[in-house]
């Protein structure tokens, strides 16, 4: 059997790959390896609409790269181009330095795992295990090994107990996890995840992220699309922010956060009934305050150049009890909105 799991050590900027094709043995180890994925001015149009406009980016093995953007930004189109399911109008896609525009007779499934965004991507009348077994065999794994690998992947995503149930009986979250299991069947060097946490509860989303993080730790290059901006903090190494097909930002999450600072905060004030009047009278010099629904809760908006500590000092100096204070929106979300607002 040509298939072997790759090293569990994190291997940024290096690649250790065993091919998923059992008849082909590919072994590459190169510390100066080219990026797992490189896009060079990729453009794609749908009639008059520009879905992607000269998008360039790089993604290295072991890296989680978030593709961020509002609806219609071009995220799924980009993923479909990477997966070989759609062709770019112009520009080049490279995988490990090789031109990838021609996906060849056997497609890119040899080295790409895809977690599609749709819910119905399985055969509903057969079990989760049989689904995995089917796809494992289409990836060229022999029956016995395909079964073992399918069971391992079911175990990894916590679906062992329901492996023999029909997929039609699975919840949305279970189907998402099964999609991850399928994408990991061959432990591909590249994993494309199209909004994998969409519609999942927080626990389900966390499980999915942990599974993907583990894959990245084994050296898999992960492209993760999302419109839930806060989920990339502490998760993605780098990101590209797309809006209407154009790249609005590329860099790390801290770099994205540095492009903005929070200007609006949610305050919870205690004390006397006239606390708001007192607070308002002192805050008017540095910003503004307005009620925010429940009694004692307000939105504090600061003028440019005013720091939060200054405003809080004014409030406490005036005898106002500040029980709680937090950002109305995270810095990531703020940056996201700033970078996309003029075009939404």
């Amino acid at each position, binding site marked *: 059997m040509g298939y072997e799991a790759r090293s569990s050590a994190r291997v940024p900027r290096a690649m250790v790959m065993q091919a998923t094709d059992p*008849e082909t043995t590919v072994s590459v180890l190169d510390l100066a390896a080219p990026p797992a994925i490189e896009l060079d001015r990729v453009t794609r149009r749908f009639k008059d609409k520009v879905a992607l406009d000269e998008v360039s980016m790089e993604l290295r093995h072991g890296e989680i790269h978030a593709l961020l953007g509002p609806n219609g930004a071009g995220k799924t189109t980009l993923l479909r181009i990477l997966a070989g399911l759609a062709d770019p109008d112009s520009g080049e896609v490279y995988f490990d330095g090789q031109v990838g525009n021609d996906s060849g007779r056997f*497609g890119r*499934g040899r080295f790409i795992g*895809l977690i599609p965004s749709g819910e119905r991507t399985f*055969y509903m009348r057969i079990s989760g295990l049989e689904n995995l077994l089917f796809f494992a*065999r289409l990836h060229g794994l022999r029956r016995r090994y395909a079964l073992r690998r399918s069971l391992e992947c079911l175990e990894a995503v916590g679906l062992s107990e329901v492996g023999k149930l029909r997929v039609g009986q699975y919840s949305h979250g279970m189907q998402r996890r099964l999609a991850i299991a399928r994408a990991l069947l061959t432990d591909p060097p590249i994993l494309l995840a199209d909004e994998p946490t969409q519609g999942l509860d927080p626990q389900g989303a966390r499980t999915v992220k942990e599974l993907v993080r583990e894959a990245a730790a084994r050296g898999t290059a992960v492209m993760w699309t999302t419109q839930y901006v806060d989920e990339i903090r502490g998760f993605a190494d780098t990101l590209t922010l797309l809006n209407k097909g154009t790249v609005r930002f590329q860099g790390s999450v801290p770099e994205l956060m540095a492009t903005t600072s929070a200007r609006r905060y949610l305050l919870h004030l205690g004390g006397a009934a006239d606390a708001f009047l007192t607070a308002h009278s002192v805050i008017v010099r540095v910003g503004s305050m307005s009620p925010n629904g429940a009694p004692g809760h307000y939105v504090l908006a600061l003028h440019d150049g005013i720091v939060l500590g200054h405003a809080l000092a004014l409030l406490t100096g005036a005898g106002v009890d500040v029980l709680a204070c937090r950002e109305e929106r995270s810095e990531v979300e703020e940056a996201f909105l700033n970078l996309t607002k003029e075009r939404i």
Partner: protein
Amino acid sequence: MSVVSAPSPASVFLRELRKVAAFFRRDLLTAWSYRLAFFTSWLSLLVQVVLFNFMGQIVAVDKLPTYGSGLITYLEFVAVGIALTTFMQIALTRVQAALRGEQLMGTLESLLLTPTTSSTVQFGSVAYDLVFVPIRMGIFFALVALVFGASFSWSGLLPAMVIVMVFIPFVWGLGVASAASMLTFRTSRGVVGYGILALALTSGAFFPLEVFPSWAQDLARLNPLAIAVQGTREAMLGGTGWSGITGDLMRILPFSLATPLIGAFAFRGALRRERRKGTLGLY
């Protein structure tokens, strides 16, 4: 360091063949999950046999063509036609129906993302039927012979099977071409339906071609299904040996060589077009 050993064509072929087994298992399990339909399809076969037996009782045997030395009954005449047209209908519609099903289920892109050739996807999609339909045909002939006393020349079974084998690529090619049309236009039911109707109507499966006007008879004799039906009847009912079917085989062969090529060309073109447009998974 980079070490790459390319697989040999033989190992690629074997690997793709193993994938066909995976398709077969998937479709068997899916069919079995619809247990009622699984059993009622056998019941409908029985009903069909009974129906044609009764119809046969109102058709005079001297109105039917003769095969070999004796007269034949309508049930014997039509049994061969039913078997071949059923086979053709399934072969023609199955690939495109399977692909359409994959599109609607949302599995087509996942399927095409695996390192599987489009030929394997096409062949795998009909693997279950290629096993199931001959079994069904065999049981159909056994029922007709044992329950209703139809008489077949069992020595002609092997030549008849050869005719069917040579006929398969023709239908296969048309089926793949219709699948290509489905990929492009999202539906090909109308075109395929009319095609099947036209081929079946002019095949002589249900009535002798002699009832047509002479010009229509000449056209109908170019229909590969008509040639296959005629050849199979000569083998199964008249006991014609290999020499009797050679002419039929030679007439089917050009069609069986041409349509798979046309089908494969059309299918690849349709896939390429969908990839270019980025609409492969849309329905």
